[in-house]
């Protein structure tokens, strides 16, 4: 017994000192039963242990920002499903504030586009958004490559991952994609419920919430990914300071005015605040908006053209259901922790 305790303690200390070691079986991408085919083309960026570890190191390294202050993880913390919890608008270097609430990161292999306005069309080039945004990392990819080239240890890691110690923008981006594409969330209570597994026993309230959800929310937040990846105007009033018209900024099409990406609701209870500008702090506020404060406009989603009717109890039940989408296996998955050296 004493030995066991010592061994466990030793393992814990070792673990804390060196982090989780990645083995080949840790980087096997899973397509859960019944899920659609991923959009991401893995054949063009085969995930390897070294590539995943390099991506992980880059994700946590503030070297990506111009002044070395801000990493990807600064605004994407794992325990909040990789968003910037409690920050309505995320901030970057020099404390500058962005104009949008950072999105959660998981099940990215199914994303057809990235960012609230869908301006980014591929997982691999997604990091260019935050890296170059003046209020996020304020850097350029050229400069990131230059900095990594002279930073300790990186050339060897690029060699291990890509067989080339010459660091390129392409390899920086492919490594980050190898790490982030592995953020998979499919082990919530709801998932266990649909798979009839232990731990998936829903309460009556949760089941009623699911029923109401399927009736009122499913057309956009459809299962199993809880988004249909479309862009919708959900009747939020235009913030007169930010003047953010969303998707229209990308397509220049007035029909896209005030439309934003439908986010996945997986882990939604952990990723407050809500909406593209983080204007609501609670899920109840979001549902109250849907029943009470929809702003009519030409591009409003058809679902909101006549008012949604939900009692307070209905809303509470929906929220209880939404909590079953929290996936602790994912939120505490050791593979996604920062590597200690």
């Amino acid at each position, binding site marked *: 017994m004493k030995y066991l305790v010592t061994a466990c303690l030793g393992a814990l200390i070792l673990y804390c000192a060196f982090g989780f070691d990645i083995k080949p079986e840790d980087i096997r991408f899973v397509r859960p039963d019944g899920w659609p085919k991923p959009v991401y*083309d893995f054949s*063009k*960026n085969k995930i390897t242990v070294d590539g995943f570890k390099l991506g992980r190191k880059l994700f946590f390294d503030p070297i990506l920002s111009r002044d070395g202050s801000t990493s990807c993880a600064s605004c994407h913390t794992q325990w909040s499903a990789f968003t910037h919890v409690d920050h309505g608008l995320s901030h970057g270097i020099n404390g500058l504030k962005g104009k949008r609430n950072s999105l959660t990161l998981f099940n990215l292999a199914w994303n057809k586009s990235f*960012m609230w306005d869908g*301006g*980014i*069309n*591929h*997982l*691999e*080039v997604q990091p*260019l*958004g935050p*890296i*170059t*945004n003046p209020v996020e990392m304020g850097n*350029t*990819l*050229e400069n*990131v*490559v230059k900095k990594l080239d002279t930073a300790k240890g990186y050339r060897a890691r690029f060699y291990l991952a890509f067989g080339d110690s010459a660091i*390129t*923008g*392409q390899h*920086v*981006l*492919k490594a980050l*994609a190898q790490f982030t594409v592995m953020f998979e969330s499919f082990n919530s209570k709801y998932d266990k419920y649909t798979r009839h597994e232990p731990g998936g026993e829903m309460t009556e309230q949760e089941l009623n919430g699911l029923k109401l959800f399927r009736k009122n929310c499913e057309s956009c937040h459809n299962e199993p990914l809880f988004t249909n990846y479309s862009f919708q105007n959900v009747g939020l009033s235009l913030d007169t300071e930010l003047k953010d018209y969303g998707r229209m900024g*990308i*397509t*220049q099409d007035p029909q896209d005015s005030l439309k934003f990406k439908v986010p996945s609701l997986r882990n939604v209870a952990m990723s407050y605040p809500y909406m593209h500008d983080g204007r609501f702090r609670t899920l109840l506020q979001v549902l109250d908006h849907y029943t009470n404060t929809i702003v009519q406009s030409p591009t409003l989603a058809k679902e909101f053209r006549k008012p949604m009717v939900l009692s307070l109890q209905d809303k509470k039940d929906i929220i209880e259901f939404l909590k079953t989408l929290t996936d602790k296996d994912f939120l505490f998955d050791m593979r996604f922790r920062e590597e200690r050296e």
Partner: protein
Amino acid sequence: MNYFVRLSLLLATLLLPAYGMATPASDSGIITIVIEPMFGDQPLQLSDKSYVDNFGDTLYIDLFRFYMTDLDFDLRGDTTFVLAGYSHLVDAEDKNTLSFSVKIPAGTYSTFNFTAGVDSFENTSGANGGDLDPAMGMYWAWNTGYIMAKLEGHSNVCKTLHHAFEFHIGGYMPPYNAARNIAIALPRAMIVDHDTRNTVRIKADVAAWLTTSLAKVNSIVIPGKDAAAMADNYAKMYSLDKEVQIPLIHK
């Protein structure tokens, strides 16, 4: 003088490997494409030389870069040889980018085709490498896509900070795709085989791009209607200067 030294050095470096490769009477030859940045009939000089555009305005060019991709060569007759995936970034500031060589099958060619810009496939396929690496400074972050051509400079007619004008032209989504197909007809059929080296010299004339007054339009940096209209201008930049064939002597 300097220019000729460079040219001969360039030819020497290109000839040597070709000479080595030619041993098994290969059925292919090498074509060297040389780009000549111009302003009207003068070779383009960046920053310190002034030019006068079609509107009589004096201007300076500070930066001039563009992509040439999807190279292919029409054989006399009907077949085309496509150099799949070949992409080249020309930067007027970097002499090394002003020429490149490609190997193509022996034959008699009538036209050299390329895309001025980058086609939609490459714009939607993630992080590419080589000249298409997003670290080349020709890539938009917030709205994915390549900047297919960049022209920057300054002129007193521009009522902007430092009198600067800047055109970053791109966009792959219809109807505002800014890539343009260019066909350069070769006046005499170009015979390609392992005994000759062909050089095709192409002028890229900035004056042909600037067909709107800088006083009126001096900044286009996002995809859309204006960018697509300007792409129609840069499609007119290219013309054949001349085509040279040098016999190689084999032992």
